[in-house]
């Protein structure tokens, strides 16, 4: 049983496009940093030492701040806090938007009217002023207010998209058929509708995480959070307040900035892989693309084996000779391929 789970995972991994593999690797790196960071950080991120504004060295890989705090330790703690916040917001927003989107579309009638109205009301709330006003009052209570406010303002987008998608799926024949065979409503929603929306939901989750990271870092940067905790945003806040840029202390803001940028990049790359996981048809297309050595679009003419072999240059054929999956083995037509 266990081995088959592993084999399945390995199969999924092998079929992922390169972009998604890079995304998974990069994101995994940051998740790992978030998990073990506080254990492996060399110093207490808040501890002040006489060694101020020191450039990166063997003792302090990322240098120190104006008050002699170790920046590597700050970044390691910061990644954890920022990812924690972003993933929490992502989960909350996704759950709420799926619940509201699917319910309003599937139940229809008065439910749809009421839920759509609520969605639309939340949609027109001007997010930025509200965030600033609310967090201006609540900023000293750690991350919770930020999570709540970001979640509150984040869900209507996903809910609308998912409601629209559910509406089109609900009208299709296979839903009518499963209703006819007597499936329960919750079963239809969970097993007939949701699987069709997996790529949409996953993409909306990834986008929300991205939005939460961006928003929380921006809010921290302008000081609208507890600036005495270490998140990627507060590191940037302190670098800005203590004019790291003027002093030429690039090591103060580059690591945190880079971390934000790389997490964002990894999420965008991840997004591109999700599409293929959700669609068996795209996966099958990739099999042929592997034989060809380049992407084959659905609108392309049917590929011809002899042409694919001819198009493959010397390097391509060399690499292909190592390929594990030999296509059409044992047929008189396929030969080596």
């Amino acid at each position, binding site marked *: 049983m266990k081995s088959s789970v592993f084999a399945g995972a390995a*199969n999924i991994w092998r079929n992922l496009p390169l972009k998604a593999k890079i995304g998974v690797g990069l994101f995994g790196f940051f998740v790992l940093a978030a998990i073990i960071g506080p254990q492996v950080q060399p110093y207490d991120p808040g501890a002040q030492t006489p060694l101020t504004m020191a450039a990166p060295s063997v003792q302090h890989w990322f240098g120190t701040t104006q008050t002699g705090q170790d920046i590597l330790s700050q970044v390691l703690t910061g990644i954890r806090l920022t990812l924690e916040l972003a993933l929490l917001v992502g989960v909350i927003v996704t759950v709420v938007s799926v619940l509201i989107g699917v319910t309003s579309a599937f139940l229809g009638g008065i439910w749809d009217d009421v839920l759509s109205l609520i969605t639309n009301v939340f949609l027109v709330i001007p997010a930025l002023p509200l965030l600033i006003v609310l967090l201006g009052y609540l900023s000293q209570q750690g991350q919770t207010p930020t999570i709540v406010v970001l979640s509150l303002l984040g869900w209507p987008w996903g809910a609308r998209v998912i409601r629209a998608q559910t509406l089109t799926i609900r009208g299709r024949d296979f839903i009518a058929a499963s209703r006819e065979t007597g499936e329960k409503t919750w079963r239809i929603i969970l097993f007939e509708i949701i699987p069709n929306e997996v790529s949409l939901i996953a993409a909306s989750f990834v986008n929300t995480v991205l939005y939460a990271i961006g928003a929380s870092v921006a809010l921290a940067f302008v000081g609208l959070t507890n600036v005495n905790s270490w998140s990627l945003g507060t590191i940037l806040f302190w670098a800005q307040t203590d004019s790291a840029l003027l002093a030429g202390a690039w090591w103060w803001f580059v690591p945190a900035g880079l971390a934000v940028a790389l997490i964002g990049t990894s999420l965008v790359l991840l997004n591109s892989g999700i599409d293929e996981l959700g669609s068996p048809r795209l996966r*099958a*297309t990739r*099999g*042929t*693309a592997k*034989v060809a050595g380049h992407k*084959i679009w*659905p609108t*392309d*003419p*049917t*590929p*011809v*084996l*002899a*042409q694919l072999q001819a198009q493959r240059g010397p390097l391509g054929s060399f690499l292909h000779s190592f390929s594990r999956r030999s*296509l*059409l083995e044992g*047929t008189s*037509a*396929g030969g080596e391929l």
Partner: protein
Amino acid sequence: MAPILEISDLSVAYRSDSGDVHAVEHVSLSLNAGEVVGLCGESGSGKSTLAYGAMRLLRPPALITSGSVRYSGRRITHGGEPVDILSMSQRELHRIRWRETAIVFQSAMNALNPVLRVQDQLLDAIQAHLKLPRHEARDKAATLLDLVGIPRDRLRAYPHELSGGMRQRVMIAMALAADPEVVIMDEPTTALDVVVQRDILSQIVELKDRLGFSVLFITHDLSLLLELADRIAVMYAGRLMETGSSQELMREPAHPYTRGLLNSFPALHGAKRELTGIPGVPPDLRDITPGCPFIPRCRYATGACSAVDMSLAPVAGTPAQAAHLTACPIVTPEVTKEASQEEVAS
């Protein structure tokens, strides 16, 4: 007479995680000018894959693994060498599609865009392939509807305002828009009742005689082909079992599979007889067993059948240059005659 479309040794496979599906295996089929060739077989026997593969219309995971498709339309070759569709680039294919080879798709309901008027869809097809000024294209669209017997005022109708038969006619009109030399019809009448079916078929024949195109007609309905087609190719499990003229096939089916098909529907004329059908199910196309794929369902199967190489050869007892070919060298007309006599005796 040189064939206008000559498919030779065509193989098409669909890749899948559980093994490659060999949907078409080494099929050779030719289509002469002005001829109606019927391609028939059960669902999943590879008839559509053969036709679409030859036109390079299949999407991945389909892959053409061998063969050539030579087209010798006069507008393309100017009397010279035929061109190979399988070695064409996308641009070259675009040049021959519709203008040279057109397709009437299986379900007209899905092939017509529900939000566009019939006229706009006809104009799309015309303007994509012919450089015509707008008003001429309009006239052309109207003439096309005349051709298939739909009143001109239906030009402004939406697909849902037409009946199934009319929609199918619109599809045929659209296929004929650019005056093609070869028209592939993929079960164009399957969803229609027999009266409308009859109507459309006679119209197709009449149009063919008038405009001089050739037809490759795909269907699972052998009885329909016996009436409509000049020649018939019978397909099973991705391979051709028998080809021959309709008369030959009807009078003296050589292959046991064809005999089985003919025994599956009642004749309109002649004595009543028992309908037998063909027991069993078609084989899994993922693993190909050597020899004839029909062995498990064949009542004449012998040990020698698994050594048959499935190439078409003239039916025993017919002259070598005759066009009646079968893939079964075991079952000769004598064998079947004996068998049916035994049946009568018992």
